[in-house]
């Protein structure tokens, strides 16, 4: 790898560490912030996430090759890690580190956007069901029950069969549309409890309509499960994308995504393990970091611990 790339990589590490320190400093004033960082893995999780986000954003800077370039199919395929190719090369002689870095863009983007769709939908449904109760609640929650019972991969396979290989946007949408059910239950439970609090009755007494009550009063106070859902949700979507890409129905090659990189390297597990190890490690690290952050957030935002 070239010297400028090395330098940029070191800067990325430093920046990630600085992010953790800044986050810790800026939240020290809040009780929830201090509780968050009391978890030993929370800081580590923020650091790992920050690192990958920085790498994804600055992918061209921290790498020296083109992610799709096949460098020398004869001599450089399945090369073990070396100083020139720090994570090795894959079966098509593409530099693995470059592909991991650019793959981060795809995987993280799909993860974040998919989670956004899922959490938004889940929150809306859960809020409406919890606020209005009675028959609306019954209808919505039975739909959620059905949704939870559906095998997701099956649905996606059907979608592929019907529409062929999905473009990225459609993939994100389909993943989001099939991942919101759990969130809706959590949000509904929280909304059921918040709506009984006096300040909600006070808002209604003052003349607020249901929209204002739900969006200004109920949801901001039901935010805890939504935030935790979001953090954990990205991890789930990431894993789902990896599985789909591995199966060949997710992100299409040659665009690198961590999932299809594993698919590419799978036949060479014994002879060139690094081709599957490094993308797999990337997935594992990010998902673990998201879980650590999600857990710490859940404890930090726990209202029972407030005063």
């Amino acid at each position, binding site marked *: 790898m070239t010297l400028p790339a090395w330098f940029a990589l070191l800067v990325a590490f430093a920046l990630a560490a600085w992010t953790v320190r800044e986050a810790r400093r800026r939240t*020290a*004033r809040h*009780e929830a912030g*201090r509780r968050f960082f009391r978890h030993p893995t929370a800081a580590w999780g923020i650091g790992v996430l920050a690192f990958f986000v920085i790498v994804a954003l600055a992918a061209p800077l921290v790498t020296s090759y083109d992610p799709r370039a096949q460098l020398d199919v004869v001599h450089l395929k399945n090369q073990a890690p070396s100083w020139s190719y720090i994570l090795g090369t894959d079966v098509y002689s593409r530099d693995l580190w470059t592909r991991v870095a650019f793959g981060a863009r795809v995987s993280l983007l799909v993860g974040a956007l998919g989670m956004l769709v899922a959490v938004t939908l889940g929150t809306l449904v859960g809020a409406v069901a919890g606020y209005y109760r009675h028959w609306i609640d019954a209808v919505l929650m039975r739909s959620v029950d059905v949704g939870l019972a559906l095998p997701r991969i099956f649905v996606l396979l059907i979608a592929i069969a019907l529409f062929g290989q999905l473009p990225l946007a459609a993939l994100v949408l389909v993943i989001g549309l099939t991942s919101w059910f759990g969130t809706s239950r959590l949000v509904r439970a929280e909304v059921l409890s918040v709506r009984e609090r006096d300040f909600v009755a006070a808002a209604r007494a003052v003349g607020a309509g249901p929209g204002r009550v739900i969006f200004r009063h109920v949801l901001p106070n039901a935010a805890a499960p939504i935030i935790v859902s979001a953090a954990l949700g990205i991890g789930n979507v990431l894993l789902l994308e990896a599985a789909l890409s591995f199966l060949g129905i997710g992100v299409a090659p040659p665009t690198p995504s961590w999932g299809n990189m594993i698919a590419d390297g799978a036949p060479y597990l014994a002879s060139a393990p690094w081709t599957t190890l490094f993308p797999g490690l990337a997935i594992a690290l990010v998902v673990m970091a998201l879980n650590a952050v999600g857990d710490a957030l859940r404890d930090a935002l726990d209202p029972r611990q407030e005063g």
Partner: protein
Amino acid sequence: MTEPLLRVRDLKTYFVTEHGRGTARAVDGVSFELHAGETLGIVGESGCGKTVTSLSILRLIPEPPGHIRPGSVIEFEGRNLLALAPPDLRAIRGNQIAMVFQEPMTSLNPVFTIGDQVAEAAIIHQGLSRKAARARAIEMLTLVGIPDPAERVDHYPHQLSGGMRQRVMIAMALVCHPKVLIADEPTTALDVTIQAQILELLERLQAELGMAVLLITHDLGVVAGQADRVIVMYAGQVVETAPTTALFDGPLHPYTEGLMAAVPRIDAPKSRLQAIPGQVPAATAWPSGCRFHPRCPHAWTKCKIEEPPLLGTGDHTARCWLVQEPARRKPAPAT
């Protein structure tokens, strides 16, 4: 004068607060004595330190963030409770000194029957067998006036009303016939007719069992009806102590006067209440000098600088410079 059953001298309990907001000096030099058979009332509003005082006696303060300062003395029958080893202290808790808490909803364990909970103390301290302890529990439930005790002994807390639960709490406290009962706001969470029942029960039990009672409350009416002597607490200190009648006949401390004027009374006609201006200061930043001076209508320069000790003669003392300089008392404003 007989030896006091419980003697507290210069009790200081401090709490370390997070994030550099300083130390909360919740109890800052409290002294009092409790004699056998008498009821001592501790009166004060929230933040005055009365609950922390009661928890300190039985050393129920969580050790971080709270700690009882060295130099504090808590003596029960001559033994220093603060120097006892844990097994000896446990032998006293629930056995010789028992406590009743404010919230009957949360002080009972929801997954055990009330019979089990009442019997627990008997099993621990008196080594009774399960059968004997159960019989004892039924005895106690009868004593505290729970109807159908033989049936109720197997009920769970959620099957009982608030008043019933508080009776169960009292039964739990009394099962080993303690010499001292600490009752921390035992009726505050209850309706007024149930409160009357519980107060009558406590009076009867005290007469029957000959206990000393430390009654902690914010309600001056409760104290007037139940206590032989009263101490008034404010900002972590005792600001006045007197026999009950003397206190109500002629309070010495302006805070006590203010409290009495602020309490709404049934026998008074519709009128404006005399409020105490301002609010209770934070335990991390007690005012200098006399802690009540920012809210006191009579305060002068000395009050801002020098903290008064308990002044006065005999059994009626007050922590106020007016005791020494009564001429400084400003006349009451025309209402």
